[in-house]
């Protein structure tokens, strides 16, 4: 079964090729079959491989499939090789499985779009690149997938390129992530410089022997990799691109937020955990970044009116949780939250897409309302997703995964009470803005007619994902509730476990859990009061000058765009403008000038008089033969 | 030294004999034409009008040697000599009999072709130096005709070369001991004969000098001895072509031994000269485009096919 691993990333690429080359001729039905089918078969193979992996793990808990040699220059040898271990299996599973449901959903969502096959081509390429990223056994292949993902996000965000705003958003996403990628590339150079190889496993085994804990190079390398990770995963300070990325079609957003792209950073840090453990400073920075991001994104999420932007900020916030978990060393908790998040965030985006489709492509949720009756399936699944996001205690998967992170933020080796407090407060905010969205959208008066009632292609993905968002959490239960550790046991082969350190203080853990649960419920009630029962409290507050200012501040994502505009863009543009005629530019102005002068000189020789040409030949012959004779 | 003397003798002998024959041919042609056209021909000067040649010679020698003032003088003078020289040089390779040959070159056949192609200059230069539109037209025709017919004249002889395995005329003659090449190379013979008529621009292919259209064509402006040169050149050409036909296709000097080889050779040659004259007496002149299309569209392909078939048979037999 393992031998079929290569098919997993190949099929989406094949689908992309077919769609890109023959998309126009295939027609919509065939395009959909190719687009969805390739991911579907990939998902099926992944699941079969996963079952095999669970029943009889490969030797060394990892399966490596070397396809061919990519580059071989002196010491620099890079293979096209796939590395499958528990970590990459989880990612592969999520990418293909969630990706499949998103693809299926897209068939209906994009049904009326004229660029139907182009959309599926991009989506397939996206999935393929992401699979390459998580399955690549060396950092260069990972980087290839990494950039492929970046390219696809650019293509998909700017999918409706006729609107220049979408193109702007696409460029913004591309350029901002490029900042991180540059840092990551330097990090890769540094790693290659230190270890002479880019193979991940070799680096991980060599690192502890080469570097002592706290080694400067290790810190620098990990911080540079972190730069790449924050760029891709939209963490502070490079989070600004993700809310704008909502310009793309909603399934794209689902794919970016749930299965691919933004989780690449999480994967990178989890994958390179070996060297992060050698750099506690970097770990701490990761935790700080995660905590700060989850709070800032949470605040920004509080005031958004666009339903997709709420979800975007919630993603940033949830990824922040994952970074927090990575930072404190709770590797499996981060991956667990990643998986659960993938389920409920995909569900929420697809639900939001269904709503937007039903509301004449209106995205402002304050113009909606009362959709619970009109779209019952969407409502209930959306509610489940929201509950999972808000971590409603006991019944939702999100509770278990988030609870693990919150507890580890305190109890783990790198954790402390401040990080814990930030995580708990973040959970409260999350619950609040999530249910603000639910109440505003589904309750109250219906304001716009429902224009599109979803069919089975939308409903089935929603229900399946809702099932996982609800019950996916039971594969890993905290120590206080049965201590069921299937998931972390599974991951133990790839990532170091944390349990022994974490579960010493049971009463504290109970306190933390109960506090989180209560806060989540309170936040839901608060949202109910403020947005359904007495909305005038909010309007009264926002009418005051301070309230209005605060609302604007939060709405703009805490002014990061404003800040970057002034801090980077304007000075850069100013420098570029004032430096228009610099030395280098003069050189490049001189080059065409010179070639033009030569052109004039030579065109003068082109007199059309054959005898002149022959005279030229004679002169040339004299010169060259004279040289020969003299030499 | 005696060898050199022998060669000198042959050279002088050939020159004298050929020039004499050429002169006599003038009388011979007129007599033959008259015979076929039921009239007397020259019959007043000497027995059978034989001295008519001498009379003509005297006339030509004493006529004013006039050069048209608008002509290109040196070329005008030079032109008539070319044909005489070229044809006389052509006789150098003709094997009159075993041992009686000026130069038995191993490329004799090619040499003959080269010389006959040089003959074309005579017409060309004569016409162009005359600065006369009829002459110009005549020499245009002549040049085109000679170039065109030269092509397959050479090709038609290649069959002979294949059969005899040599370019040398002596060897070609010797190769015909058992069978004259006219039998296996009948097509080649016909083509060569037609091309020969055209090469010497004799009637019916006398378009360069067609009296009725171009008032004597390229030599309109010529008179006196220079005209005589053209005249003699033409008869020399006929003799050369006839000799060549005899050599290539009719076994040259070969023949029953009751007559010496030289006599056989001259008999054969005279037979073809007579055939030339008979052609003039009997055939009308074709149009210029007919001449050209005959050459390019019929004779050239035919000669190529002949060459191809001959070569193929030779290969198949394995000679």
């Amino acid at each position, binding site marked *: 079964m393992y031998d079929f691993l290569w098919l997993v990333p190949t099929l989406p690429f094949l689908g992309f090729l077919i769609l890109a080359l023959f998309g126009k001729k295939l027609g919509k039905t065939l395009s959909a079959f190719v687009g969805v089918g390739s991911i579907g078969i990939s998902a099926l193979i992944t699941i079969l491989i996963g079952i095999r992996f669970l029943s009889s793990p490969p030797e060394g808990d990892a399966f490596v499939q070397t396809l061919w040699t990519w580059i071989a220059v002196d010491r620099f040898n890079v293979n096209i090789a796939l590395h499958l271990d528990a970590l990459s299996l989880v990612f592969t599973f999520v990418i293909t499985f969630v990706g499949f449901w998103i693809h299926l959903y897209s068939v209906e969502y994009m049904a009326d779009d004229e660029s139907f096959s182009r959309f599926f081509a991009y989506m397939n390429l996206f999935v393929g690149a992401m699979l390459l990223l998580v399955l690549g056994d060396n950092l260069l292949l990972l980087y290839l997938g990494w950039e492929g993902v970046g390219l696809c996000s650019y293509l998909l965000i700017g999918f409706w390129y006729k609107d220049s705003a979408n193109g702007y958003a696409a460029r913004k996403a591309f350029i901002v992530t490029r900042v991180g990628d540059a840092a990551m590339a330097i990090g890769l150079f540094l790693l290659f410089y230190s270890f002479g190889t880019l193979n991940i496993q070799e680096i991980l085994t060599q690192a502890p022997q080469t570097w002592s804990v706290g080694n400067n190079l290790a810190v620098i390398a990990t911080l540079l990799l972190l730069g790449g990770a924050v760029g891709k995963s939209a963490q502070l300070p490079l989070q600004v691109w993700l809310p704008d990325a909502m310009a793309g079609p909603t399934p794209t957003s689902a794919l970016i937020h749930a299965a691919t792209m933004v989780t690449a950073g999480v994967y990178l840090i989890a994958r390179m955990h070996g060297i992060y453990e050698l750099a506690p400073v970097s770990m701490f920075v990761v935790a700080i970044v995660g905590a700060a991001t989850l709070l800032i994104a949470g605040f920004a999420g509080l005031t958004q009116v666009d339903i997709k932007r709420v979800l975007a900020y919630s993603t940033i916030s949830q990824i922040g949780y994952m970074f927090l978990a990575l930072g404190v060393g709770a590797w499996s908790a981060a991956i667990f939250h990643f998986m659960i998040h993938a389920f409920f965030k995909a569900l929420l985006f697809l639900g939001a897409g269904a709503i937007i489709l039903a509301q004449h492509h209106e995205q402002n949720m304050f113009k909606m309302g009362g959709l619970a009756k009109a779209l019952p399936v969407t409502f209930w699944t959306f509610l489940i997703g929201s509950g999972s996001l808000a971590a409603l205690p006991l019944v939702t998967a999100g509770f278990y995964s988030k609870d693990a992170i919150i507890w580890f933020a305190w109890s783990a080796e790198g954790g402390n009470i401040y990080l814990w407090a930030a995580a708990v407060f973040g959970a409260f905010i999350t619950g609040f803005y999530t249910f603000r969205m639910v109440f505003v959208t589904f309750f109250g008066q219906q304001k716009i007619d429902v224009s599109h009632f979803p069919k089975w292609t939308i409903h089935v993905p929603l229900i399946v994902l809702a099932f996982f968002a609800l019950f996916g959490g039971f594969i890993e239960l905290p120590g206080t509730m049965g201590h069921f550790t299937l998931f972390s046991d599974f991951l133990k082969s790839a990532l170091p476990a944390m349990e022994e350190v974490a579960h010493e203080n049971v009463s504290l853990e109970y306190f933390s859990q109960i506090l989180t649960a209560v806060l989540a419920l309170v936040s839901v009630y608060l949202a109910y009061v403020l947005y359904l029962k007495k909305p005038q409290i909010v309007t009264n507050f926002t009418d005051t000058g301070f309230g209005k200012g605060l609302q604007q501040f939060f709405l703009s994502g805490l002014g990061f765009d404003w800040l970057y505009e002034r801090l980077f863009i304007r000075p850069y543009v100013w420098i570029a403008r004032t430096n228009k005629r610099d030395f280098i530019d003069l050189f490049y102005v001189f080059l065409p000038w010179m070639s033009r002068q030569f052109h004039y000189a030579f065109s003068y020789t*082109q*007199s*059309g008089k*054959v005898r002149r040409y022959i005279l030229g030949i004679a002169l040339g012959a004299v010169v060259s033969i004279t040289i020969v004779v003299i030499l | 030294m005696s060898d050199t003397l022998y060669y000198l003798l042959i050279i002088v002998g050939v020159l004298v004999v050929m020039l004499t024959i050429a002169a006599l041919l003038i009388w011979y042609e007129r007599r033959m034409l008259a015979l076929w056209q039921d009239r007397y021909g020259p019959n007043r000067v000497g027995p059978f009008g034989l001295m008519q040649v001498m009379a003509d010679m005297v006339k030509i020698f004493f006529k004013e040697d006039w050069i048209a003032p608008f002509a290109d003088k040196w070329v005008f003078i030079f032109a008539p000599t070319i044909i005489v020289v070229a044809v006389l040089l052509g006789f150098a390779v003709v094997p009159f009999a075993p041992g009686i040959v000026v130069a038995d070159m191993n490329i004799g056949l090619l040499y003959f072709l080269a010389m006959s192609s040089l003959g074309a200059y005579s017409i060309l230069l004569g016409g162009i130096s005359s600065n006369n539109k009829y002459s110009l037209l005549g020499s245009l025709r002549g040049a085109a005709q000679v170039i065109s017919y030269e092509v397959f004249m050479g090709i038609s002889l290649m069959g002979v070369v294949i059969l005899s395995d040599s370019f040398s005329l002596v060897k070609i003659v010797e190769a015909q001991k058992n069978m004259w090449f006219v039998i296996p190379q009948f097509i080649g013979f016909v083509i060569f004969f037609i091309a020969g008529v055209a090469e010497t621009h004799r009637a019916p292919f006398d378009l360069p000098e067609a009296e009725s259209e171009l008032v004597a064509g390229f030599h309109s402006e010529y008179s006196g001895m220079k005209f005589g040169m053209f005249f003699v050149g033409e008869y020399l050409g006929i003799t050369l072509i006839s000799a060549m036909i005899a050599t290539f296709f009719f076994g040259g000097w070969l023949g029953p031994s009751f007559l010496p080889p030289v006599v056989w050779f001259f008999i054969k040659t005279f037979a073809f000269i007579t055939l030339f004259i008979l052609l003039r007496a009997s055939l009308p002149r074709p149009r210029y485009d007919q001449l050209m299309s005959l050459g390019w569209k019929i004779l050239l392909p035919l000669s190529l096919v002949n060459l191809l078939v001959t070569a193929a048979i030779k290969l198949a037999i394995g000679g």
Partner: protein
Amino acid sequence: MSSISLNTGLVIASILFFLGFLGVMIRRNILFMLISVEIMLNAAGLAFIFAGASHNAPDGQVMFIFILTMAAAEVAVGLALLIQVYQKFKTLDSDAASNMRG
């Protein structure tokens, strides 16, 4: 038999060649230029023949035949062009056909 050497032959060939070359350079008349080109080709063939003769090999003559072929084709096309030029410009001045200069 004779004291002709390869060098003598090559010198003769190069003299002829450069005379042809000079002809191409100094003549304005396309006809003369073509004639000069023929001289050059012939000189090149001459050099080949000398080289072949110095080795007693037929290759030089083969090369000459190829040059001959080329010369024939070149003359045919060249003269056809010349006629066209003459019909178009009413002159054989090679400078007249310089319309396509840059």
